[in-house]
């Protein structure tokens, strides 16, 4: 009797609102677009960073890594900070008394992340191609890798947003972003890291995603089983931890 006539109406409206709000936030545009594009362009043109053996053009190494960085920015940092402030401002509390419902809210956030990611990937691929990138391998494997990583990163973002004060979430998400960027094999290869740190880095979602994308987008590449396992483990553990600890007020 209280069933909406168009069950997808609320979800669609909320998704549009989430995307609009993301685009409206200057810092999130910086984080999701300017930093990845800037890193990609700068280090492709200024060949100062180490590259794995067999890679001739920096962009061939950078492009998959920067795609991984973009996914992490949107799914973990952007989502975490936005949700943290929504919690602090009482938006989440207020939404609980509307018929929107938790599944539709989470669904809208998921869809808006996917939309922003699709946009990021499109822009980054075009920029990388202009810089001379020649992708190879099995690009279709990149899709499930990005999907799994998105779930894991989103879980980490919500874990922070649901337990910490918004300002602390802001700092923690940005701090974690930097750590995962440096240990993620995104701008320089994991092989440049000391062996002990390298093992840790490969167990992190950022390292696993960039490994997976490097493998999927390089000649003859196929994503190693280890990467799948790490990505899947984070995709289960992080959202589960967030679900248990999340406080709505």
């Amino acid at each position: 009797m209280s069933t909406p006539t168009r069950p997808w109406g609320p979800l669609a409206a909320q998704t549009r609102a989430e995307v609009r709000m993301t685009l409206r936030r200057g810092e999130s545009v910086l984080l999701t677009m300017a930093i990845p594009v800037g890193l990609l362009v700068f280090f492709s043109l200024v060949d100062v960073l180490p590259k794995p053996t067999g890679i001739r053009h920096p962009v061939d190494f950078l492009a998959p890594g920067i795609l991984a960085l973009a996914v992490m920015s949107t799914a973990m940092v952007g989502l975490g900070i936005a949700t943290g402030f929504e919690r602090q401002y009482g938006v989440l509390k207020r939404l609980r008394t509307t018929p929107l419902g938790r599944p539709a809210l989470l669904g809208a956030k998921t869809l808006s992340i996917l939309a922003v990611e699709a946009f990021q990937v499109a822009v980054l691929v075009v920029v990388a191609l202009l810089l001379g990138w020649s992708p190879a391998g099995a690009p279709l494997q990149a899709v499930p890798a990005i999907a799994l990583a998105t779930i894991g990163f989103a879980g980490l973002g919500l874990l922070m947003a649901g337990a910490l004060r918004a300002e602390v979430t802001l700092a923690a998400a940005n701090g974690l972003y930097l750590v995962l960027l440096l240990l993620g094999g995104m701008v320089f290869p994991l092989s440049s890291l000391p062996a002990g740190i390298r093992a840790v880095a490969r167990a992190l979602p950022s390292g696993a995603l960039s490994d997976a994308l490097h493998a999927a987008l390089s000649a003859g590449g196929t994503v190693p089983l280890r990467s799948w396992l790490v990505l899947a483990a984070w995709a289960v553990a992080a959202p589960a931890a967030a679900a248990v600890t999340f406080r709505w007020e």
Partner: protein
Amino acid sequence: MAFPAHATSLGDASPHHRHPTLRSQVVAEIDVEELEVRYGPTVAVDRLSLQAHAGAVLVLLGPNGAGKTSTVEAMEGYRVPASGRVRVLGLDPRRDHRALSARIGVMLQRGGIYPTMPAGEALGLFAKYYPAPAEPIALLDRVGLTAAARTPWRRLSGGEQQRLSLALAMVGQPEVVFLDEPTAGVDPEGRLAIRAIVAELRDRGVCVVLTTHELDEAERLADRIVIVDRGRVVAEGSPAALMTGFGGDHIRFGAPPGIDASAMAGAVGAAVGGQAAVTAREDRPGEYVVDVPPTPQAVAALTAWLAERDLPLADLRAGRERLEDVFLRLTRSGARPDADAPAARRGRR
């Protein structure tokens, strides 16, 4: 006279005479029985019972920390009652949350809106959540925010934010509306606008539950007032009934402290010749209240008694007690019977 320790009902402000054709039977839209809300060891709401009806404004009035918000949040489904029973439109606010959410409107004490979202967009978005929403553009106009449609929430003034909040609570065409301190931080003009909208909701048959710690607001808006203090109902009734029922008519005046109030009351009582004994008390040093209708005879007897004793008289006021007097007396610490004190202190938040 001691005031009753338990909730006392004074007169019936039943709304049903407003819409005799709408409701033939008396069914409360909101029914709260013996509600208890705890935060750890703290009791915020202490066995509180109340009812609210369609087409009427119920005002929960009480000092800050009295348990008003906790009571409302139990009705909205945010709080789990430690004991007692809450029904809104016959439904359990937590168990039947999904079904209920489309039929209620909520205005939180503050915030609750995306800070960067323009007013018009927020109203349009909320309208999409509900199965049968009001027309957002007309509603925005009704709350006087048409000019602010493109202004983000965080740049609206305090009064504009409250009016947008009110519009968001109304956009789903709810049967029950909860407004937690809707006029807090709102300028006089904004208050008038909010009061007019609340009256309109009531006239449309909506059950409105509103909290405030401002007496003026309660007196103007309420069909029925429930005075809450330390988590308990200390009095309830229509504004008029509350004022006449508690204290009623009296004469208030200033004179030197230490006058024999009972002798004075006796003299006035003898002159008036009523059935009930007249009482008098020294409210504050040098400030006296005689509980008697302020007839010329009573005033004459009083002034004559003072003149005989050569006592000066200052600031003589005759008339009905203001709601403020009732409120302050009922909620002032120590004003209530001692038997009530331990439970009350336990409930302090």
